[in-house]
């Protein structure tokens, strides 16, 4: 479990990361409520964006290991690549889960109307894993930390927008409404709509199931070991 503990330590040792990991989620709690849309306070509607950002920030630790050649060392050490990945991902997911808990619990304390906070937490945790997996797959394409981060920011904006987190999906032209389903963010916004209006639990489970399916697909794609 050495890799796990050190991964936690490294995630917190950098100031920018600290801001991303603590200030942003806390700030999200205090964002106001929208008038007609979204149905949850802005902070909760946009929490998915923060999760995506945090996901890439954390995943760049793996990219850094690769760029610096630490993976070479680990390839020679008595640990498998699978152990390395799982321990890192475990550390990252714990951070993301803690964040989700803080945001939900803080919101409840603050007095936001969150309808089903417990289900919202489940949804956020599912999406956290999806975000990690997407980030992992994303960094497997890059060698430079800066480039991968900057380009990912633009991509985040697009998928968040097209997935219907920034604007109600009903306002989109028909074809874009259909295309939106392809993005994992669509399922997050669907999940949020369910939290507010839904009552059939199987629908919610389906939404989470899809998020998990995405997680597994992107994990498979991102799990490649690259030495050079």
């Amino acid at each position, binding site marked *: *479990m*050495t*890799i796990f*503990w*050190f991964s936690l*330590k*490294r995630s917190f*040792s*950098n100031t920018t990361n600290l801001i991303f990991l603590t200030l942003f989620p806390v700030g999200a709690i205090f964002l106001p409520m929208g008038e007609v849309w979204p149905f949850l306070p802005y902070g909760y509607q946009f929490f998915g964006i923060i999760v995506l950002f945090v996901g890439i920030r954390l995943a760049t630790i793996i990219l850094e290991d690769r760029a*610096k*050649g*630490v993976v*070479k*060392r*680990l*390839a*020679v*050490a*008595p*640990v498998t690549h699978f152990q390395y990945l799982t321990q890192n991902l475990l550390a990252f997911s714990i951070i993301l889960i803690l964040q989700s808990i803080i945001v939900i619990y803080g919101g409840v304390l603050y007095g936001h109307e969150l309808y089903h906070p417990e289900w919202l937490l489940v949804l956020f945790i599912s999406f956290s894993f999806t975000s990690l997996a997407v980030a992992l797959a994303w960094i497997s394409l890059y060698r430079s930390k800066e480039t991968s981060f900057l380009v990912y920011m633009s991509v985040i904006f697009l998928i968040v927008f097209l997935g219907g987190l920034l604007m109600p999906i009903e306002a989109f032209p028909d074809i874009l409404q259909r295309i939106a389903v392809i993005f994992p963010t669509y399922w997050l916004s669907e999940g949020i709509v369910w939290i507010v209006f839904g009552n059939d639990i199987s629908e919610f489970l389906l939404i989470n199931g899809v998020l998990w399916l995405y997680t597994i697909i992107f994990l498979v794609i991102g799990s490649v070991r690259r*030495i050079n």
Partner: protein
Amino acid sequence: MMIASMQGVVKRYGSNIVLDYVDLAIDEGEIIGLLGPNGAGKTTLIQTLTGMIPFEKGQVTLFGDVKAPFSNKNKEKIGLVTQEITIFEELTAKENLQFFAGVYGLKGEEKKNSVQEALEFVGLSDRANKMPKKFSGGMKRRLNIACALTHRPRFIIMDEPTVGIDPQSRNYILEAVKKLREEGTTILYTTHYMEEVQAIASRVVIMDQGQIIKEGTVDELIKTIQHEEKVKIDVTDAGQIPLNKLESVTGVKQVNVDGNQIMIISEANSGNLDRILSLIKAHAGVLGIQADKPNLEDVFLTLTGKQLRDKVGEE
């Protein structure tokens, strides 16, 4: 005892053959200097030998284990010092070592001691709790080496451990390697610095174009390949000396003048120094004579016509 061996190993990237039926055997206690120009396949050899990358054909044996050479049990006995500085900048020196000790399965008291020992070994005990960000290049290199030592490996592979550092740190590292040798550790060492290999290697393996083209001890290699002698003569007034006469002395291949120093290259064993000196003395005073012994650099040049050094400039 045989520590590691490769038999007929073939490695291909696409249609490029990087290792072409390579045979290599490393015995316990040996220090092997692996030399070769850029793209000779040195790094690939190391990567296949440690199981980092798969290979197409052949067999690798580690610690006599033919069936599963890359099992965790065997990996625990290997230490790799990478060419790049592969340490965590955001962790202190000590934490870096703890990380690798932990990955190698050390625990509790044993871990603490071995980390301490590794720090002392590379002379970083007084900086144990400092961030490597603030370290000089040489100190980073030393930490880079220490990270491969915490688990006390029997076989250490060093891929260019002294690239781009100050002479002092380099000496420190060389001394450390010598210490390791005395403890009976087997070492595979790649570098461009011939002096280093000459100073520490018990055997030299020269690679070119994916094949091992020559191996032997430093002395053996130099002896077999020696084909010219270099003499530098400091004189009072080089301008007075008739160079064409010098060039026509039997055995002389080349005469160069640099200021008041004359460099003469002649065939091996030509025994013409007397004649050269008397010729020079007739025209100018001789201040000093210096005969350059051939070194591994010359061996390399003789074998391949390529300089080993030009790679350093690129880095």
